[in-house]
């Protein structure tokens, strides 16, 4: 086996599990990203690279700044300082819809199914390059009819894959919580993304559906997309991630393969607190 084949098999073969480590083929590179709320620094990330074509999970205790960091990267919040690039092109200070068009698509922790629109309309909305979305051209149907037909086909294909095809003509508000998560993921795929950013896709979902969601996430990677997702459930993270980034108090305290993270003292400390030795039961000073 030559060296090239080895790197495709495991892109992290030569990557040390230290915070801010360089990756062989990064899709996103962030430098010195800070977000402050008054005196509180919610996010303070020195350097982070996301490897292309793998599943990276972002973990950390509540209040670690994961979602804020997510919002900064996707343009939904403004950083006080810092630069980051997506596919080698500047991505800081870019508005969210431009990033989405460049292939960086995100979902939300609280699902944003567009309730008073049908499931199919939710999907069609996400389709890129629709001429009929221009106010003037929308009045001339022949200009966009063919595009629409193609999008309807693609939408049905994705809905079938996510087992939502039977619900296509119903209002999205009629979907269950889990189905909304599925719809949001399917809708994100309509945009032909290269980087899919999922904010707690498994939150509040029953175990059976979690399994199916996990299947969909790994499928994204197998189709060549890069995935970054925020998650709490350690089992989930250990099963599907290729790389884990752990945040605490706004900074990245550890990165590495799941196995590296599981035994990392800093991570355990961030989640469980410092072990001072001695008894920890019932003693209040």
């Amino acid at each position: 086996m030559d060296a090239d084949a080895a790197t495709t098999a495991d892109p992290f073969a030569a990557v040390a599990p230290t915070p801010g480590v360089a990756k062989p083929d990064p899709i996103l590179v962030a430098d010195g990203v800070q977000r402050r709320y008054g005196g509180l620094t919610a996010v303070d990330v020195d350097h982070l690279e996301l490897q292309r074509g793998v599943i990276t999970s972002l973990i950390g205790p509540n209040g670690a700044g994961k979602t804020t960091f997510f919002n900064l990267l996707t343009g939904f919040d403004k950083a006080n300082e810092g630069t980051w690039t997506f596919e080698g092109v500047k991505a800081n200070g870019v508005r969210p819809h431009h990033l989405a068009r460049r292939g960086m698509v995100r979902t939300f922790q609280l699902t944003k199914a567009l309730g008073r629109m049908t499931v199919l309309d939710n999907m069609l909305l996400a389709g890129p390059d629709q001429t009929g979305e221009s106010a003037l051209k929308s009045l001339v149907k022949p200009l966009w009819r063919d595009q629409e037909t193609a999008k309807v086909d693609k939408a049905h294909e994705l809905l079938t894959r996510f087992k939502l095809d039977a619900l296509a003509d119903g209002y999205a508000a009629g979907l269950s919580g889990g189905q909304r998560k599925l719809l949001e993921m399917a809708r994100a795929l309509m945009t032909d993304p290269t980087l899919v950013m999922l904010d707690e896709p498994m939150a509040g979902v029953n175990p059976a559906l979690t399994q199916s969601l996990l299947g969909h996430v790994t499928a994204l990677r197998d189709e060549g997309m890069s995935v970054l997702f925020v998650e709490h459930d350690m089992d989930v993270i250990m099963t599907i991630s290729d790389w884990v980034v752990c945040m605490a108090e706004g900074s990245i305290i550890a990165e590495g393969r799941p196995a590296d993270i599981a035994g990392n003292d800093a991570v355990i400390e961030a989640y469980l607190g410092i072990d001072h030795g001695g008894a920890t039961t019932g003693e209040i000073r």
Partner: protein
Amino acid sequence: MSWLGVFLLALQTALGFPAASYALAATGLNLQFGYTGLSNFGMVAFLMMGAYGMAISADRGWSIWVGFALGIGAAVALALLLGIPTLRLRADYLSVVTIATAEILRLVIAARPSAELTGAARGIGGLSSKLGFFRPSFIPEGSYGFGDDFVFNSRQLWSMLVCWTLVLLSTLLVRTWVRSPWGRVLRAIREDEDAARALGKNVVVYKLQSFVIGGVIGSLAGAMMALDSGSVGPARWIAPLTFALYTVVILGGAGTVWGPIVGAVVYWFVLDFADGALNNLWFDVSDTTSGAFRLTLMGIGLMLLMVFRPQGILGNKKEAFASGR
């Protein structure tokens, strides 16, 4: 007056110019509020632009077409002026800014230093003779209708015909728009702006487009009101007119194509029927009492509608009860 007379008189208003002009203005508001979720509480300002555009143009001796163009231009400018700073912000800012702007504009128009342009509190009159709005009418002089209570004169018939035509044209235009992918983006913004943004839609541009188009339709309604009455004054363009338009939109069904038309017809029928009925009782009701009472009735009616049919007359129940969260 007989009860049949009361009914016919109410029907006359509900099919006549009052309903037509409200339907036109409500069509614009429906695009903004019903389809895009923009709470424009200063719709009356756009009507004012149309009305004064027409009146000022007449005062200078310009033609009716210049009048329309002036009103539309002013409405576009106003929409951009209000929209560019506020549509980036949260939805409530737009309502505050629009309601305040409408009131400020009315006061500026009514102020003495504006007399040169707007006639201040007196307003501008004699529009009909200056613009010749009724001159191209092919309807011969006389009265049309049946009985004593359902009668239009030729001038009324002409202005309602022109106004209903505008209503029909703008409704068909809005219908084409909301059924297109462009309209789909508007509805997505109404449901959740951030979701639309995350899917690559430039939300601010769409909101601005909807705001401008709705405002232009509103200005047409204002221009028609000026043409129909032959004069404009500042007293008419008060906030309750905006609220009446909201009543019309919600009554017919916000976010439905034909809702504003149905809403306007029902609104004027109920209002005028209540008026006629109050004056037709076995005891005397003073005009001020009946004026207040009919609005009370409208309010109660609207509350009942909200309780039993929140989607409005034409709205889809499933859609109304659907919620994104």
